[in-house]
C-alpha cells in the first residue's frame, strides 16, 4: 500500500458564502491557497478521499469542485507569478 503523495490543484465554485467559508476552512487544513478558490495540496490517496468526503458533507449539488492531479513534470513546468512563498519547494523540515 504505497502512499505516494501527489500534488493536486483544487478549484471550487461555491454559490453561498456560508458553505464557502466552511469549505475554505476545510481545505486550508490540507494545503495552501494559491489564489482565490484555488489551492495546491499534496495529498496521499487517503487524504484525497478524506478531503472529498469532508467537502461532500458541506457542498450542495449546485456547487462545483475540481481536483487536478499534477505529475512531477507538471509541477516543474508550472509558471507562477504569485505572492512570495506561496509555492516553494517542499523540504522535510522548516526552521523558524
Amino acid at each position, binding site marked *: *500500500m*504505497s*502512499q*505516494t*503523495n501527489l500534488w493536486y490543484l483544487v478549484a471550487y465554485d461555491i454559490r453561498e458564502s456560508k458553505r464557502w467559508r466552511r469549505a475554505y*476552512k*476545510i481545505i*486550508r*487544513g*490540507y*494545503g*495552501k491557497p494559491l489564489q482565490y478558490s484555488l489551492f495546491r*495540496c*499534496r495529498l*496521499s*490517496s*487517503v*487524504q*484525497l*478521499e*478524506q478531503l*472529498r*468526503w469532508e467537502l*461532500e*458533507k458541506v457542498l450542495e*449539488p449546485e456547487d462545483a469542485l475540481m481536483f487536478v492531479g499534477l505529475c512531477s513534470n507538471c509541477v516543474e513546468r508550472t509558471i507562477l507569478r504569485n505572492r512570495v512563498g506561496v509555492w516553494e519547494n*517542499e*523540504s*522535510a*523540515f*522548516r*526552521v*523558524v
Partner: protein
Amino acid sequence: MAAYSAGTSNNNAAPLLRVQSLHALLYCERLFYLEEVENVRLADAAVYAGRRLHVELAREEEGDWHALDLKSEKLGLIGRVDCLRRRNGSLIPYEHKRGRAARIRTTNPPKGSKNSDEACAWPSDRLQVGAYAMLVEEATGQTIVEGRVRYHQDNVTVRVPIDPALRADVIQSISRARSLADCVERPPVTENERLCVKCSLAPACLPEEARAISRLSSESIHKPLQRSVGLKTQQIDQPSADQKAGTGKESSLATSHVPRLFPADDHRQALHVVTPGARVGRAGDEIEIFAPEQPKERHPVREIGQVVLHGFAQITTQALRLCADKEVAVHWITQGGGYIGSFSSGAGAVQKRIRQYEALRTPEFRLQLVRRLAEAKILSQLRFVLRASRNTDRETIGISQTIDGIRKLMPALQRANSVDAIRGLEGRAGALYFKALPTFIDSAIDERMKPEGRTRRPPRDRFNALIGFAYALLLKDVMSAILTVGLDPAFGFYHRPRSQAHPLALDLIELFRVAMVDLPIVASLNRRQWDPDDDFVVAGFQVWLSDLGRRKMIELYEKRKTDRWKHPVLRYSLTYARLIELEARLLEKEWTGEPGLFARMRLR
C-alpha cells in the same frame, strides 16, 4: 459511543458488537482483533470513499433515506442499517457497498447475455445483511425474508435470502467474536496474502514481516540469530558456518515473493521553532507561527508531522489540541539542547503495554534482547571505525588497536550472562570508539573542533556540543516512534528505570546513534561546514551551540532523516525517519509471536 457506554454500564455484560465488526471478522480474524479488541482504527482511501458514498446517497434520496441505528442486548449487536424499505408489504434492509459484487460462473447463461457471470454478495456482506435483518426483526417484530446489497461500482443489487443457514452463521460469528475478544493473543496473519493488499490495517498489522518471520522460523530463528550477529565481522577473518546459514536465510527471503506493505514515507514536515519569543497558535486547521520581527506564517496541519519547540517558544492550548487531533507530535528541547519531553496522542493501547511488561520482566528474554541491542550498537561503532579508516594506515594512527579491542569484546558479549556484564562491555567498546573518533577528522580542521573523549551535561568541547544536541533531536524521534507504536517508553530492558528519562527510548536510540548522528557529524566536519567561532557559544568550560549553530545542526539531522537506507533483513529501502518506527514495531514483535527481526540492522 452512547450505545457502548449503555452496554458497559451493566457490569457483567460484554460491550455490544458492531455489525461491521462481523464483516471484519469474516474477512480476517486478525483485522477484527486489531480493530475491535486493540482499538487500532486506520481509515484508508476506500473507507473515506465509502463514507462519501453514504453522504451522497443520503442527499440524493432525501426523504427516502432512513439510516437506522439499532441495537439488541439479546444478540449483543449494535449497528446502523443503511436503508430500510418496504417492498410488497415486507421490510427489506439495504446495504450499500462502494465496490464490486462477487461473481460466480453460471452453468447455463441466459441466451444473448454477454456476461456469463452472475453477481452475488460477498460472504462478509451476506453476513452483515443477515445481522441487520435480525436486528430489524427484533426491533419491529416482523419476520425479514430478504435483504439486499447494492454494489455501486458495477451498479447491481443483489438479493440475499435471510434463511436459517445465514441466521446460524450470524449467531456463530457472534460467539466466535466473543471468544476472540476474550483472548489476549493476536490471531495469526491470514494465509490469503491477497486480502492484505486492500486491507486498511496493513500498516499496523505488518503482515509481510510476520509472514517473513514465519518462513524463517522453520529454520529455527533464535539460534542462528543470536550468533549471526557477528556475521559480517567474522566474514572479514574467516567465513563460518553461521555465515552460510545467514546468507541462506536471506536469499530465501529474497526469492520468495514479498509484497511491500510497510507504509511509505511521511511527507509531513518537521517544524522547528527556534526563535526566542516565537508563539505557535492555531487558526482553523492551520498551525500559525508568530515570531518576533518575522511575517506571520501559516501551515496546513496536515503538512506538519511534528512541532519541535526549542528553548522558550510558546504553544497555545488550541494548537496543542489540534496537534493531538491530527496526530502531530510536539517535542520540547531546552535552549542548551537537552531533551525535555514529548506530547503525543499516539494509541496508548493497554494490551500492548501489558504484553510489553510481561515480556520484559522475563529475565532470559530480557538478557537476549540486551545482548542483541549491545551487539548492534558495538557493531555499528566497529563498522564506522573500519569505514572511516579504510584508506588510512591503521597501524600508524593506532586504529588497529581499537579494531582489535572491539573485536575481542564480541566473544565475551556472547558469553556474558548478566545485563550488568553487557553494560560493562558496551561501555568499554564505547570508550575505545570515542578515543578513535578524533582520528577520523581531517588533520587540517581547526583543532578546536576535535573532541576530547565524550563529555555531556555540560558538553566541554564543540564536538560534544554537536553530538549532544543531535542525540536530543534523535531522542525526540525515537520517543515519537515508541508512542506511535503504542509501547510504554518508561519500561525498557537495557537502561535502568529512572524517573526522569525514558528507558525504552534510551534503549532504542542506541541502534541509531552512529548512523544518524556520529557519521553525518564527522562527515560535515570534514566538509568544513562548521565555524568554531560563530556556531558555538563558549561559557567557561561549557560549550553550547549558538542560534546559528543550532539551525545548522537541525538542518544536518533532518536531512539525514530523509536519507534512504535498505534494511538488510527485510530487504526494502526506507528513510531513516521511517526506520526508527520500523524498529520500534519490530521490537514489539519480539514478544507478539514474531521474534527475531529487531536490532538486525547494521551500518554498511
